[in-house]
């Protein structure tokens, strides 16, 4: 899984500019992920690839279009030093796994990584190093495993 590396404070206007989010079509949203910030991303990203970023990833708007676009583009997980609060909830709610890892500086753009979601271990195959992400709270883990909040509510018999 190839790494797409981003910096600190990547905001939702960089992920999905408001001018492009007048739609709820997931396939369309997948094509506009980082459309102006990193135009090659949506064209070259492969299913399973991983985003690695610095602090406060996803800050800004509450638009759920941002994690939907990232997931629809094929990204299997986002690893960052920290996440903005609403983005964290939104990504969890749609079943896009997020991992918090202090050592993201050790990973470079283009590295190949493997993630063990149960242990939170990130193996960077290009550098042959293994990093440890913080384990997600059980409640959050369960939502992601079920593929999102609505599936979780269903599986628990709430709806």
């Amino acid at each position, binding site marked *: 899984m190839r790494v797409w590396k981003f910096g600190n*404070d990547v905001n939702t206007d960089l992920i999905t*500019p*408001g*001018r492009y*989010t007048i739609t709820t079509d997931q396939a369309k949203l997948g094509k506009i992920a980082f459309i102006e910030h990193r135009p090659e991303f949506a064209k070259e990203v492969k299913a399973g690839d991983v985003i690695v970023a610095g602090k406060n990833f996803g800050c800004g708007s*509450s*638009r*759920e279009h941002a*994690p939907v676009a990232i997931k629809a583009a094929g990204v299997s997980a986002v690893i960052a030093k920290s996440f903005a609060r609403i983005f964290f909830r939104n990504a969890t709610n749609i079943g896009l796994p997020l991992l918090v890892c202090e050592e993201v500086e050790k990973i470079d753009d283009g590295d190949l990584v493997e993630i063990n979601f149960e242990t939170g271990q990130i193996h960077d195959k290009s550098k042959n190093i293994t990093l440890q992400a913080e384990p997600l709270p059980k409640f959050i883990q369960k939502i992601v495993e079920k593929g999102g909040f*609505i599936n979780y509510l269903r599986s628990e018999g709430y709806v």
Partner: protein
Amino acid sequence: MGLTITEKILANASHKSEVTAGDVAIADVDFVMAHDSTAPLAIEGFYEIGEKVFDPEKIVIVFDHFFPPPNIDAAKLHQRVRNFVTKHKIQNFFTDGVCHQILVEKFVSPGNVIVGADSHTCTEGALGAFSTGLGSTDIAAAMATGKCWFKIPESLRFNLSGSPGKGVYAKDIILNIIGQVGADGALYKAAEFAGDYVKNASVPSRLTLCNMAVEMGAKNGIIEADEKTKNFLGREGKFFKSDEDAVYEEEYEMEVDRIDPQVACPPTVDNVKSVASVEGKNVDQAFIGTCTNGRLEDIEIAAKVLREKKIADNLRLLVIPASTKIYLDAFSKGYIQEIIKAGGIICNPGCGPCVGRHEGVLAEGETCISTQNRNFSGRMGSPKAEIYLASPATVAASALAGKIVDPRGYL
């Protein structure tokens, strides 16, 4: 051990005697809000969960992000949301103001819990309520169940003392705070504003402070309600207060007398400098409005600066009242007429060009100075345009000069 106002409101809403930071609580919500940009996804999620909304009177839908629709796709989304509103007999449907201003004017009472599918839902916390922004799936679940889960946040307390000098307003103060703590300085936390400055500040100024809490990552901004709040709203409520011995993760002491007019420079809200240090930067568009600074006192300041003067050549000045009520009040006081005579353009109440979808989109190389709350690249149009954030006084003065200027010479 004492409790904060945020902990007390969330304990009350989750029917518990006490909750403290770190607990997870399922709270009843008083109002669930979504707007034209976020409601479509929320509605799709809602239909996956249920058939009936929990209480149509507690759901508020506002068209503000792109109303009237600027293109066919936008009109189609509006159609879908209107169908939902009709089907579920939602009476609280508005097209004449920014969602947060509508909530303030018509709905929120002290002690309420409000969730909105808009990050600036932290604004309403200025009325002594717990109010926070969420995404569409959470809002879908809240529309179906009337409940929402929250991790009780740690609180940061900002004790603001003193009185601001000439040309310094709530916007300058909150920009200064964000510049100090950074874009993630209050991540996941409650930002509680207190002190004699806050006590003396008008309710609209308090709304400006809480509006930008999310720009430092906060879950909610909050200010204790008082007599002033009650008179402003004309509504009763539950007046929660933080205990003297409440536990804060950190307390900041700030003297507002020391703050001069501030500006957030592109491309991040925490890139804050004094206006004096960027004076002379050419401006193509000046915008006064939004959920941050589109209220009557903001338009009054703008009218005062612009009175019997003309804006600079080749500059467009947009003034957008945050609601129809504000628009009419500003009109009856003559502010709107003064702004128009100075060369300003008035647009219908709503978000205007803040999200870059209509009414003042920027071209490559253009610069906008705005009273809004975000200056991210590409937000208002071309990613190669620049956005500076400032108070209504600074924006109005800059519109006259055609470049960024310190407002103190214009008041």
